[in-house]
């Protein structure tokens, strides 16, 4: 890394709202830890309902992150490296799930892939039912997580600039070679942090899943849905499972930081 720029001091008063903001974020996390029934913690974690929900969450989030990379990288490249009429509008529309309430996304997916949806009948003819399947969970997660990867990667592509790509091209590299050997390695940190964000968003996905996919143990009931249901009968169990999601989230962020500094 280049020499750090000489520091300009920040005004002292700015620490007051900064600390208040940090406390606002950290206090609820502390509250969860304080309310966790530590005596039953392990028992709650190894119950079949919990482990199935956790494994389902990890499996679906992993799959949707792969789908996000598969479609998100080309989308980010097209948005960052080309220009065409209506590109600005297209970008805004593609990034819409970022600001859309997830439940609205769930309804939109329902009217697309549901049995009576836009594509539902076509799938029905093929004998494929998406509603109430694990596929529906992955679709819901991919829908809400994709923009995170696109935004993150497009930013990296723009700030990396095209200098090296231009040089490679003048040396005779084909566009595909430039993309593979120059562009991708250059923005790998951005891609990693984008993928981590997408994974985290998939892991937390709740609204679109419950609206679109339903809730059945081992099939569609991911950890957030399990927590929501468990609150009904056993608030302590819900807290314990919440703590698991918090820990997974901390691991994910830690991994992302690790990836960024080592790359």
């Amino acid at each position, binding site marked *: *890394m280049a020499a750090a720029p000489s520091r300009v001091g920040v005004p002292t008063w700015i620490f007051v709202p900064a600390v208040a903001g940090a406390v606002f974020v950290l206090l609820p996390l502390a509250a969860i830890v304080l309310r966790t029934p530590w005596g039953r913690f392990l028992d709650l974690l190894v119950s079949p309902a919990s482990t199935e929900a956790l494994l389902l969450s990890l499996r679906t989030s992993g799959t949707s992150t792969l789908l996000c990379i598969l479609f998100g990288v080309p989308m980010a490249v097209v948005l960052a490296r080309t220009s065409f009429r209506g590109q600005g509008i297209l970008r805004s529309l593609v990034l819409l799930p*970022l*600001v*859309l*309430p*997830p439940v609205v996304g769930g309804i939109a997916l*329902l009217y697309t892939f*549901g*049995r*009576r949806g836009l594509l539902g009948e076509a799938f029905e003819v093929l004998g494929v*039912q998406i*509603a*109430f399947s694990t596929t529906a969970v992955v679709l819901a997660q991919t829908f*809400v997580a994709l*923009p*995170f990867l696109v*935004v*993150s990667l497009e*930013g*990296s592509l*723009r*700030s*990396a600039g095209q200098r090296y790509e231009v040089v490679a091209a003048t040396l005779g590299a084909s566009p595909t070679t430039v993309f593979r050997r120059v562009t991708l390695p250059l923005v790998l*940190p*951005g891609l990693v*942090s*984008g993928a981590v*964000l997408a994974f*985290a*968003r998939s892991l*937390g996905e709740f*609204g679109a899943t*419950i*609206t679109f*996919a*339903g*809730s*059945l*143990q081992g099939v*569609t*009931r991911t950890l957030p849905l399990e927590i*929501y*249901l*468990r*609150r*009904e*009968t056993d*608030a302590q169990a819900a807290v314990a499972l919440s703590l698991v999601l918090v820990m997974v989230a901390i691991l994910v962020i830690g991994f992302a930081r690790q990836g*960024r500094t080592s790359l």
Partner: protein
Amino acid sequence: MRRRLSVAPAALALAVASGCAVGPGGGAAADDGAGTTLTVYAAASLTATFEQIGQEFEATHDGVEVTLSFAGSSDLAAQIQEGAPADVFASADEANMAKVADDGLAGAGPVAFASNTLEIAVPAGNPAGIEDLDDLTGDGVNLVVCAPEVPCGAATQEVAAAGGVALAPVSEERSVTDVLAKVTTGEADAGLVYVTDVAGAGAAVEGIELPESSSAVNVYPIAPVAGSTHADLAQEFVDLVLAETGQSLLRDAGFAPAP
């Protein structure tokens, strides 16, 4: 260092996107000085009926405004236990009222005011040709029910046991309204919901009566909340629900009388 900045907009959006988590309204609207506000916490299935009863109450009580908060009974009970400023609590089952009563928060003692039973709901036209409980176990029938953890799911299990069938739902929802939504959109071929849900859903769904449902009758209790600052008004509201005015509105919505 510039690269790190690129994450900022996404992280900010993450915060915005996840900010819409489930958050109960909680506090009642503040009194505007002149008027009095009576806050009624009622089970979600009572929405249409209690809105009408609330209007009746306001019409006969000058300067009193009735604020209604509708949610699942367990959510409402938890909010009242955590000190939410409710004056009246109407629950969709006795278990959640018992939670509130056990904490000494049910004022004059809960009174049953209505009951409800399960029915099969199918999308308009009944595409899967469902006729009775046995048909729900047919191959390729997308059945959606409440999860056993919630009252309507417990009732579903009792009804299935009474009918001697083993249900294999494609989804177990947390609330009866979620079950109904899956049926109205046609995603599910059938769902088990309350008679009143079918009555309130209009033309989008058809109801099929279940003889087995008499084995799981859901009783709705109501009570003024202890510590209410409007204890007299709260009791008057409870009385209105129990009087013919309230009872006829409940009947219209499909509720059966309290046992």
